[in-house]
């Protein structure tokens, strides 16, 4: 790119500075300032207060439960995401496009609607809920409902990562492998899996970050129990502490922020590598 041409199609220095300033100010006001303030408020009372809040019974149970629910949801979504991605990109069947659109649906559904939707089907007074209650299985208000709600909201994330990759790569290799006699399972293990591994990792990290943070949907389906047999995740614990007017929600919030930022940083490193490689 010749410098003289480059400078003639880029705006002058002054407008460039203005653009930069606008962008920095916008992002600062929206994101950076709040993050700084929260960090400050978290450690306002010192490190020991921070650790005490995080190691209280309610916090520890909430952290464990959040991890449990998120991991379960991500496992479910990974199985579904990989399977669905292969079906959508390697096969031909009527309704393929519709299925793809439906699988993408959860991204635009309000979390309150998600919770309500699950409740209306699996709640004790509704169709499936009643049948299941008959055999002694109670989903609603318990951990399974929370897993389902979390899986719902992050369902498309892994799928969306893998599909573009499978669309672009690996087709020729698979065809060659098929010609040479490899079966479906071998093709999956040897060609598809390595192809999607980076995107899959990215999707899993994103899915985990999304899952640990889910609030609205879980608030509707959970019984919000803290203590033994808890059904209170970290976001729910934060909300309860805020409502009850007792402090100690900043440390939990801060922990979630740290995990989120870590996830973002990890995935952005990978994204930079990909963009640089192009």
């Amino acid at each position, binding site marked *: 790119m010749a410098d003289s041409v480059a400078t003639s*199609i880029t705006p002058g220095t002054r407008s460039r500075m203005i653009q930069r300033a606008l962008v920095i100010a916008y992002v600062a006001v929206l994101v950076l300032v709040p993050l700084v303030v929260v960090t400050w408020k978290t450690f306002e009372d010192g490190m020991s207060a921070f650790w005490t809040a995080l190691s209280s019974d309610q916090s520890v149970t909430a952290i464990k439960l959040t991890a449990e629910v998120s991991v379960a949801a991500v496992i479910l979504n990974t199985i579904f995401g990989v399977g669905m991605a292969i079906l959508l990109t390697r096969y031909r069947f009527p309704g393929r496009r519709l299925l793809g659109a439906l699988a993408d649906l959860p991204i635009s*559904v309000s*979390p309150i609607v998600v919770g309500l939707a699950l409740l*209306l089907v699996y709640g004790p007074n509704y169709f499936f809920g009643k049948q299941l209650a008959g055999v002694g299985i109670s989903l609603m208000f318990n951990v399974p409902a929370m897993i389902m709600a979390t899986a719902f909201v992050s369902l498309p994330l892994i799928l969306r990562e893998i599909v573009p990759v499978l669309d672009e790569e690996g087709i020729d290799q698979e065809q060659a492998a098929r010609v040479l006699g490899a079966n479906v399972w071998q093709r999956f293990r040897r060609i598809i899996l390595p192809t999607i591994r980076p995107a899959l990792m990215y999707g899993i990290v994103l899915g985990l970050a999304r899952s640990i943070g889910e609030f609205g949907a879980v608030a509707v389906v959970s019984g919000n129990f803290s203590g033994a047999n808890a059904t209170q995740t970290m976001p729910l614990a934060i909300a309860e502490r805020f409502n009850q007017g007792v402090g100690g929600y900043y440390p939990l919030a801060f922990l979630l922020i740290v995990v989120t930022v870590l996830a973002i940083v990890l995935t952005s490193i990978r994204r930079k590598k990909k963009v640089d490689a192009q």
Partner: protein
Amino acid sequence: MTATFDVAEGGAPLAAAPLTRSSNDEGGERLSRGSGLGLGIAVIWLSLLVLIPLAAVVAKGFGGGWSGFWTAITRTQALDALWLTVWTSLLVAAVNAVMGTLIAWVLVRDKFRGSRLIDIVIDIPFALPTIVAGVVLLSVYGTNSPVAINLLGTQRGIAFAMLFVTLPFVVRSVQPVLAALDLESEQAAACLGAGPLVIFRRIVLPLLLPAIASGAALAFARAMGEYGTVLLIGGGLDRTKVASMYAFQLHQAFDDQGAAAVATVLLVISLVVILSLDLIQRRMARRG
């Protein structure tokens, strides 16, 4: 050639490329017994988790027939909540369209020290737990604001919170397109004497429009349904009660039919937006 926004861009969860490409109608195997079973299981899972519950919401919303549905959504509170949600989401989508494009432009075309930090920071609102975002925004822009800006209980505050969570949508949608643009046309126009503004308006912008539109549509859908982030800054006032909060309130008061009716309206609006987005993209893809 398909529009550049269809290019596989690893790590862009918010690039709104459709999940199925028309090119695959020619390629692709037919289903065997194994994959047929896999498809069956996938469809059953999707139905059990997503489709049947969403259908149940619509069914419950119409539980009292058309009149029950109509009554539920024409109550003053319902109309107020729905209108507030729609106009703030539209406003937020519009602001995002402009600012998101500007941010993407600066990040792609003008790499300065610190732009890397901004690039990373942009994704945080998407992944941040909504209740944390709510607490965070309230602590900075609430009553005891350390920067002396109080948005508690204002509709501005609601819009601000929505801007927070939708920050990455347009940026991440436009970035890959912008990055993959071939500079030849711009350089040619510059040689012919066009200024940067004209170049942007006439050459770059038309190429970015599909990406901007899809990002803005996603931002709109997300803002429409947002709950945790707007909950606290709303301050509990009626005039800052968005549709999701209103539906939750109805649910708490055991008016599930009312809640489902409002939820149905939200679903329909989201569906319309997503479908038109899909149509626009296909038309653009064919033209490009």
